[in-house]
């Protein structure tokens, strides 16, 4: 009779009976990947929105991400809080499986069992990597922790790094070198090694960074994609340069990157944008920065520049999603190449109140195929690609002081892929020169991919590049002179006559004694008194 009141869910198993079959095991592992779809704001991926918290990007929406970029984040910031919550959710899923996985070894083929566990241990390491870099040492949970025991202090950043590297070492042998097309997006050995090279590089553990990067190279699986622009489009999704990417799929999970990146006339909102300082940092095609290159003409500032500028940023007078992009207020009309022959149409970029505030847009990941469907992009977003591994390798070697030809080869391979074809770095550079070169190279190559924030932090230049006026282009003119470009590729406008005419997008602050790490959620501190807040928050 008491059965009458026993009602359980009709569509899901209970915790007590779960994870007893191979199918359940696979589904649970898939659940750990699900965290990669993390979109902390505006239906945009964490990978790309992170750029707005660095010196080269900006979020126009009045949001906690904008506030973070301004240097005004508090422990209540939802953007930073979402990282904590979501990444730990992914970590929890991994811990849950690991705590219940042992009996599965009996029923799941050993190779598969080991592979699936390696996949999720990679994912946990990847999530911890973000937490560790963003917050600087976080509580390390490796098993499900009951609420009654949930008073845990932060482990140090080094301890986390040790853990991540050890986990990756453990995972690597059980991971496949390749996946078939049906399993594209799964963790491979290359991905684990690429993450390892990144983690070790960020931690200044040069030998490990070098060996991991070297191991990726030795896999022989990865090649630089010839067409740099194509790499970040639907056409480049299966490129052998991509080591691992977040898989989106229409009807299942999509993102609104086209809404953020597209111009107004291309029916986007232009609200996550690159800024003037990124544009000015790119070299001219002779390999010299614009303040030194004879090729730079202030009247034609976008001519003769590193092609990656045009592949990364939508420049004035370039065609973007079928329209000639131009924000000059006198350009009341523009060309629409979506018609044949092209038509003159009114130019929203010149008149729209919310056309891009900087005068530039991101071109990376803005695929015209998403035109007209701005909230429904399933363009995969790259987590690791071969060029980054090469640059990781080079930087670690440079910093370790073991500068040899392989360093030049790695950098030049990236610089000289066919569509970029910048002049090679010539041998004989000092460590300091190479340091400058590699830092600039990372900026040119990886801008817009969610890596910049970590670079400016670990190079200890964030307090130099973040504060002050965030600049957009002069609305109806160009800069009268080339700004001074420093060793990190950062422009300085003190010598530019009409610098004051540049559009001030916002005024940013940066406290060196605080803003190198994010604040920990206020509620996390209240619920776990063993945690200490980062200084000065």
């Amino acid at each position, binding site marked *: 009779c008491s059965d*009458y*009141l026993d009602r359980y869910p009709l569509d*899901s198993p209970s915790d007590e009976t779960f994870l007893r079959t191979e199918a359940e095991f696979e589904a649970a592992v898939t*659940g750990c990947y699900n965290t990669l779809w993390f979109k902390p704001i505006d239906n945009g991926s964490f990978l790309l929105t992170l750029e707005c918290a660095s010196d080269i990007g900006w979020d126009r929406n009045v949001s906690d991400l904008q506030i973070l970029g301004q240097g005004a984040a508090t422990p209540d910031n939802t953007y930073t809080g979402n990282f904590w919550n979501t990444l730990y*959710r992914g970590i929890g*899923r991994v811990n849950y499986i690991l705590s219940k996985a042992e009996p599965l070894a009996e029923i799941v083929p050993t190779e598969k069992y080991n592979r699936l566990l390696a996949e999720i241990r990679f994912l946990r390491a990847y999530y911890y990597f973000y937490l560790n870099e963003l917050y600087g040492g976080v509580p390390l949970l490796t098993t499900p922790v009951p*609420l009654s025991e949930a008073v845990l202090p932060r482990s140090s950043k080094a301890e986390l790094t040790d853990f991540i590297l050890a986990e990756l070492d453990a995972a690597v042998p059980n991971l496949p070198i390749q996946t078939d097309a049906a399993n594209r997006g799964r963790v491979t050995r290359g991905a684990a090694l690429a993450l390892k090279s990144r983690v070790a590089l960020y931690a200044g553990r040069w030998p490990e960074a070098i060996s991991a990067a070297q191991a990726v190279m030795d896999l022989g699986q990865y090649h630089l994609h010839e067409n740099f622009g194509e790499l970040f489009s639907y056409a480049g999704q299966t490129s052998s340069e991509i080591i691992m990417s977040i*898989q989106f799929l229409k009807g299942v999970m999509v993102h609104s990157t086209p809404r953020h990146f597209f111009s107004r006339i291309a029916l986007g909102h232009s609200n996550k944008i690159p800024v003037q300082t990124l544009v000015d940092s790119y070299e001219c095609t002779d390999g010299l920065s614009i303040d030194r290159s004879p090729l730079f003409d202030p009247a034609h500032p976008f001519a003769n520049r590193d092609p990656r500028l045009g592949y990364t940023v939508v420049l004035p007078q370039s065609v973007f999603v079928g329209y000639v992009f131009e924000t000059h207020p006198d350009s009341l009309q523009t060309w629409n190449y979506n018609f044949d022959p092209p038509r003159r149409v009114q130019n929203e970029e010149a008149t729209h109140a919310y056309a891009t505030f900087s005068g530039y847009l991101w071109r990376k990941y803005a695929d015209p195929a998403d035109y007209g469907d701005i909230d429904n992009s399933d363009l995969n977003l790259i987590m690791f690609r071969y060029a980054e591994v090469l640059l990781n390798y080079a930087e670690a070697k440079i910093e370790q002081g073991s500068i040899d030809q392989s360093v030049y080869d790695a950098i030049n391979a990236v610089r000289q892929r066919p569509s970029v074809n910048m002049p090679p770095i010539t041998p004989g550079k000092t460590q300091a020169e190479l340091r400058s070169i590699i830092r600039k190279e990372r900026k040119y190559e990886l801008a817009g991919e969610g890596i910049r924030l970590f670079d400016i932090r670990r190079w200890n230049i964030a307090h130099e590049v973040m504060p002050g006026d965030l600049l957009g282009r002069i609305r109806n003119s160009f800069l009268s002179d080339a700004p001074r470009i420093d060793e990190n590729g950062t422009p300085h406008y003190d010598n530019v006559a009409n610098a004051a005419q540049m559009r001030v997008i916002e005024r940013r602050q940066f406290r060196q004694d605080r803003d190198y790490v994010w604040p920990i959620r206020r509620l996390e501190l209240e619920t776990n008194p063993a945690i200490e807040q980062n200084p000065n928050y």
Partner: protein
Amino acid sequence: VYAQKASITAKNVPLREVFTELRKQTGYHFLYLTDDLKDAKPVSLSFYEASLEEILQHCFANQPLTYNIRRNRVLVSRKEAPPGTLHDLLMQHTVTGKVTDERGQALEGVTVVIKNTQQATTTDAEGNYRINVPAEGVTLVFSIIGFSTEERAVSAGATLNVQLRELVSDLEEVVVVGYGTQKKVNLTGSVATVSGSELAKRPVGQTTAALQGAVPGLTIVQSSGQPGRDGGIVRLRGIGTLSDSNPLVMLDGVESSLANVDPNEIESITVLKDAASASIYGSRAANGVILITTKRGSREGLTVNYNSYVGWQRPTDMPKIVNAIDHMELINEAYTNTGRSPLFTEQFIEEYKTQGASNRDRYPDTDWQDVTMTENGFMQSHYLAMSGGTDRMRILGSFGYLDQGGVVPNVGFDRYNLRLNTDVKLNEKLNASADIFLRRTDLKEPSTGTGYIFHWMRRIPANQAAILSNGLWGEGWNGDNPIAKAVDGGLRNEETLSGFVNLNLRYKPAEWLTTEVMYAPKYNEPHSRVFANTVQTYRWDLTPSFATPARNNLNQQFTREWYNNLRLTATFDKLFAEAHQVTFLAGFQQEDQRNDWLSAYREVFLFPEYQQIDAGNRENERTGGSANHWALRSFFGRLNYNYKERYLFEANARYDGSSRFASNNKYALFPSVSAGWRIGQEPFMASLMHIVTDAKIRASWGTLGNQNIGGLYPFAAFINVGGPNYAFGDQISMGAALNDMANPDIKWETTEMTNIGLDLNLWSKFNLTYDWYYRKTTGILLQLDIPNMLGLTAPYQNAGVVENKGWDLALSYRDQWGQLNYGITVNLSDVKNKVIDMRGIQRTARQVSREGYPINSFFGYIADGFFMDEADIANHPAQFGNVAPGDIKYVDVNGDGVINTLDQQVIGSPIPRYTYSANIDLGYKGFDLSLFLQGVGKVDGFMFGQGIMPFFEGGTVQEQHKDRWTPDNVNAAFPRLAFNESNNEQNSTFWLRSAAYLRLKNIQLGYTLPTALLKGKLQRLRIYANAQNLFTLTDFWQGYDPEAPGFGNDSASNGGWYPQMKVFNVGLDVRF
């Protein structure tokens, strides 16, 4: 029921007490003048099952009094009139006349007394009287129980005919209570009733609208005027929980919802306000109980009723938005203020001014509200009921139809109600009833929802085009064009078919025992279909602009809800020793519900006129579906005891089991006790009987439960399957994960309530009911924050405590002045809500529930005027972004030299206090006029976003924003115009306003044709004109209805909602 026999034993008791006892046993009313009884001798008597006549003869033997039995009344009078003075006798004149009721029927036994004397007479069977009056200028008083008392000045020799009005609130009134009925005078709990005839005075589609203001303590806020979504939010005596705060609604004993109950069908509504009256409903009664009883067939003959009205609707208020030129000039000011170059050049604005009128495609000047609100909100209601029967069988069949249009295109609501209520007397001991109820509702709105339509019509600047001159849709704002979407954007149709059968068998084996079994299954089948059609918009040069959505699509969902309800009760009712009335009820009930749903989605419909799933492209098709279920099992009982209807006592208990809790916590007991003292029945009050018709003091205490805690299975951890999916190689892969932490110890929320009340009826005309209560809810389910590093959603825990303290007052007075009947009812109540314990949770948000403050309080900064100059800013702690003179200044509450979240505090409460209403009824001959005023004395309303903030996220501004801060206008209503600056957009007291209001909720003028004019079978014909929400006095933000922000955890508004309506109706009420 008038018994002929009575049993009475007494020694030396005053005659009056004998009368009282006889009245109780026989139901006969005793009519006498108190003065007459002064000379009566006490009597001793002993009768068993004797006839009334016999007993009376004994009592009146040797008394200076005599009696007369007329119908159900015993008229007591002196054997002879006392002698007056000689002068009086000489000057006497005679007055004669007839006393009738409102329908002209003769009233027998009416006491006619000369005011301030002891001279009296009574009317005879024809209602006639004759009385000698000493002189002109005296006043005659006509009175009889159950009718109004009338006074008339007399002129000698004249004929004085008097009409007495039947009093509605008879002492014999019976009200519906939980699982039974009770005499109103014997109630010990706090119970309020609203009759169907009162509801009928307000011709509205939704019962909640008709109930607004009708019951003190019942707060109803109507936050939307959208047809079909205009049901009010109902809260009884404050808010007791953070979970579901809706009162339990029982429609003829079956759990139901107030939404879409046709007011025409209602016979009466009972509101059980305190724990004592509600605890018989145990687990779901924590938010109070509303019992709705529908009309049933009448005993005799056949009557047909037809009620109908037609009406039109307009918004109560709309913001006034600036025109194109103003918009451009003001946004330029905002740009300049924030260091930007002006957005529009002087030259362009000049062009606009000169060429605009002749080229609106290029230079639009759109009044978005005007262009979108194209409809008149026509509505009509028809209700046809046939009722009739014989001694053995009674039937009421009714059909109701409501058709309510919107003020924007493609908004509407249709409702069809069909009811068949049947009562059958199978034999003397066995009765049965079978009710069938069917309802269909069809709601129609644009696929975007009306929120979208109103959001954008208040947001898009006037310099954006809505409709181009060739009829193509203009671009609106990035393709968001509210009129285009309303007309061409496809529809959301919600069609719900619901019904229930209520089968009831009542067996009465003995006079003192009634047993009853009820089975009432309920069926509900909501079906929604949303077809989002692609709307192509065009730029002024006719090139295509946005087309949204990118792919037209259809999303269809079928749901089936099946609810079983079985109930058994037995009622024992007996009078012991002529004084001890004992009623005992025992019952058992079990309920279960299962919901199943299935949904399908496809996109790209090449032929948008064919809106069926199969007509869409299979690529990206999606399906969904699942089911859930719950069950409740309950045992309940009630004991009523009264001694001579003077001392009243009641106890209730319910033992409830719910499937929502783990096995160790499934059951809980909810007891209550209450007592009443009818002080008016005490002998020592006898001398005041002509003033104090009835007086009662009540007190009650009890506990109630709440099982509506959000989830159906919060007690155990379940794996989410199919939520955490991922895609490998462009194929979806099914994922599974544990997302939520479970709490097996979870149990009921418990509400404890104490109530003290007073009921007073004076002169049979004036009623007062006052209740004071204290209501405390403990174990409120809170999702207490846990460290998110655990990776799971926090479990619910029984942790919160909330109290509500308040009082309800109802006053009514009804009388007649000449031919003018009038009545006035005033309701007033207050509730103070306070969160006692939140386990220290300190969330920051626009609305928070914090210890010491009301639930869902508004939270933000304290605005302290505007910055006057740069020095002012420099001397003030840093605020948000680039602050300039004219920006809102915030108080540095904690004095740490910076304005941040730590400076936010509770700034207001959305819970209405001092809710009041006043109803005035006037009747003169066939005319009737009623005025219903309703209001809230104290409540805060918060507006944000584009609803009130200038240029919010690029929107436009309203006329009122022109009164903005400039160096020349430092005492402005609004801050300086700014663009993309967050300082002024923080949640602060600046955007908080009092949403207190007084409104003329309803005014109605009706005329009933005199019976003499009605021919043939027509029994009644009344026509009326009615207006609702005709005017509102409030200090709330201009352009918005004070009820707009709503009431609850989302009671701040950004202006994107369907506004409240003014309604103008004319109606007809016919009875055959």
